């Protein structure tokens, strides 16, 4: 694994905008960054990333059964009691799941370590599945990247297959919050793939969802049989329509059981069950008044994009990222610092579609905490 500087494609910004990738630059800072790329060999991809991704995924699935029959664990994950049956039934009824992303620390050698599971509302999907794929084809054509280069990225193929084969409601509605172009971009990409798989995909702003007689309804008042929501379960459970989740006959994507796995509390539970596993970092639920030792990270049960994460490095330096998620319980995770390439720390997001590893996207930041604004860089495989 190494980082290689590379010329940008001339005119890539206008191309990005022509395909709906409007958030390639965020607040004047680059988000998509093709001034460099990462290069892996095939063994690193297959043995160090692909196989552990699928194994960690199976370990996580194995925990769902444990949690739904254990009140103490449900409480540790702060799942409201009112929804315990909903979550358990979604698992027992095998409610289908589309995708997830595991965030990994990996520097090219040794076992990749799991930082967290983004199993409810993962994004950077378009950047991974489409835009870095096109980047590779373009750069091979321009001779900027070697002819035989490949990429660990079957994301779009696998999503299309999933949309075609999963027992999904049709039409299938897709919702994201009205004001986020990034979330809408992710949802538009999924709708696009769903359409290519023959699914009648329809967009509705999350705030426009309606309720009539206990059923979730669209703008015309028709019952919504299936809804992909790019909106966290833990928010929905607290909002005015929380009871509609229980009464509506809607098929949810991601399904209710995913709220157990997207929860940071799953990390200590994984550690309890698989203590010492080479791809896991030691993790515990935070105890009241627990001191914050060097070499540990503190994360809220519910947070995304690095928000409200704090750490103390082994040298005692304190690093923290502010955010709006300070109102939940916290976990502690042993610090495994991200590897540094040049001036940047990089993290690997490893995708799962169904139960298969489906590719990676790399995020870079100037700090040890990866966040919303962290840059996305493409990668290649070359043996």
């Amino acid at each position, binding site marked *: 694994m190494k980082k290689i500087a590379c010329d940008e494609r001339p005119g890539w910004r206008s191309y990005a905008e022509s395909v709906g990738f409007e958030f390639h630059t965020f607040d004047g800072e680059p988000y998509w960054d093709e001034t460099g790329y990462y290069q892996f060999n095939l063994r690193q991809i297959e043995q160090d990333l692909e196989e552990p991704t699928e194994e960690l995924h199976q370990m996580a699935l194995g925990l769902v059964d444990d949690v739904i029959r254990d009140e103490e664990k449900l409480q540790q994950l702060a799942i409201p009691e009112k929804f315990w049956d909903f979550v358990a039934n979604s698992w027992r009824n095998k409610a289908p799941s589309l995708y997830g992303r595991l965030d990994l620390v990996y520097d090219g050698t040794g076992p990749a370590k799991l930082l967290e599971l983004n199993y409810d509302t993962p994004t950077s999907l378009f950047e991974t599945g489409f835009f870095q794929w096109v980047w*590779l084809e373009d750069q091979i054509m321009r001779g900027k990247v070697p002819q035989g280069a490949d990429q660990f990225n079957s994301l779009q193929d696998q999503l299309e297959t999933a949309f075609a084969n999963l027992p999904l409601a049709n039409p299938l509605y897709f919702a*994201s919050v009205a004001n986020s172009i990034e979330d809408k971009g992710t949802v538009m990409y999924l709708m696009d793939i769903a359409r290519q798989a023959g699914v009648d995909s329809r967009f509705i702003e999350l705030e426009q969802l309606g309720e009539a*007689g206990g059923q979730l309804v669209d703008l015309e008042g028709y019952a919504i049989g299936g809804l992909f929501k790019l909106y966290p379960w833990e928010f929905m459970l607290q909002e005015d329509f929380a009871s509609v989740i229980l009464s509506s006959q809607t098929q949810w994507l991601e399904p209710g059981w995913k709220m157990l796995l997207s929860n940071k509390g799953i990390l200590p539970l994984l550690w309890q069950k698989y203590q010492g596993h080479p791809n896991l970092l030691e993790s515990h639920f935070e105890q009241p008044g627990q001191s914050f030792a060097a070499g540990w990270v503190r994360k809220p049960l519910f947070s995304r994009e690095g928000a409200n994460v704090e750490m103390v490095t082994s040298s005692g330096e304190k690093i923290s990222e502010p955010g709006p998620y300070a109102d939940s319980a916290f976990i502690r995770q042993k610090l495994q610092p991200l590897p540094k390439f040049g001036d940047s720390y990089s993290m690997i997001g490893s995708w799962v579609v169904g139960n298969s590893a489906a590719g990676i996207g790399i995020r870079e930041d100037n700090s040890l905490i990866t966040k919303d604004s962290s840059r996305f860089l493409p990668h290649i495989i070359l043996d």
Partner: protein
Amino acid sequence: MKQKVLKRSKKAALVLMVPTATFLMAGCGQEEAVQTAAFETVDQCAAYYNPEQCKADLGQALAMHSQVAPKYTDKAACETDFGVGQCETPAQAAAAAGTEQVPQQAQASSGGFFMPMMMGFLAGQMLNRSGSQLKQPVQAQPLYKSRDDRSTFRTANNTPVAKGVGPAYVKPSSVQPKPAGVVNRGGFGAQAQKRSSSSATGFGG
């Protein structure tokens, strides 16, 4: 030489996100009718289909009845459309269906309203190709009969589906149940507003 297996997608194409792309709505204007059936009782249904599924379909139709049936504030107006003695309140419907629970709809509008009695049910489409229930394009639902045409079963939206008990051929989009009543909106999204520092913040991660 053996073909190298690539680790990347064979294609990454877009159809909706590209403004210049033109595409046809899948199936638009050429939707095919599928077979289902209309019944008054589980016994009639059991002559065609699995009795358990028949019971489930009748149950779903009864549950849906007071949600989708056309609503009238005035009993006479309801009877003008559906016939004298053919209208009821949600409370009466619930009692007739043998349930104690009055559907939420009725509680919400406590002023009381009238709706036609349920005269039969449309069976959901049974055992489709994939064997999967979720792909059923036709939902089990209640059926009604208008005052001036007592032989035809109609959906709550007045779509005629069958002349009497037995098989019926319907286009799935024409029999999609639509809850009739007050629609509430804005029940999701409050946490996003509360936790959003700027309007551009997303809630994926």
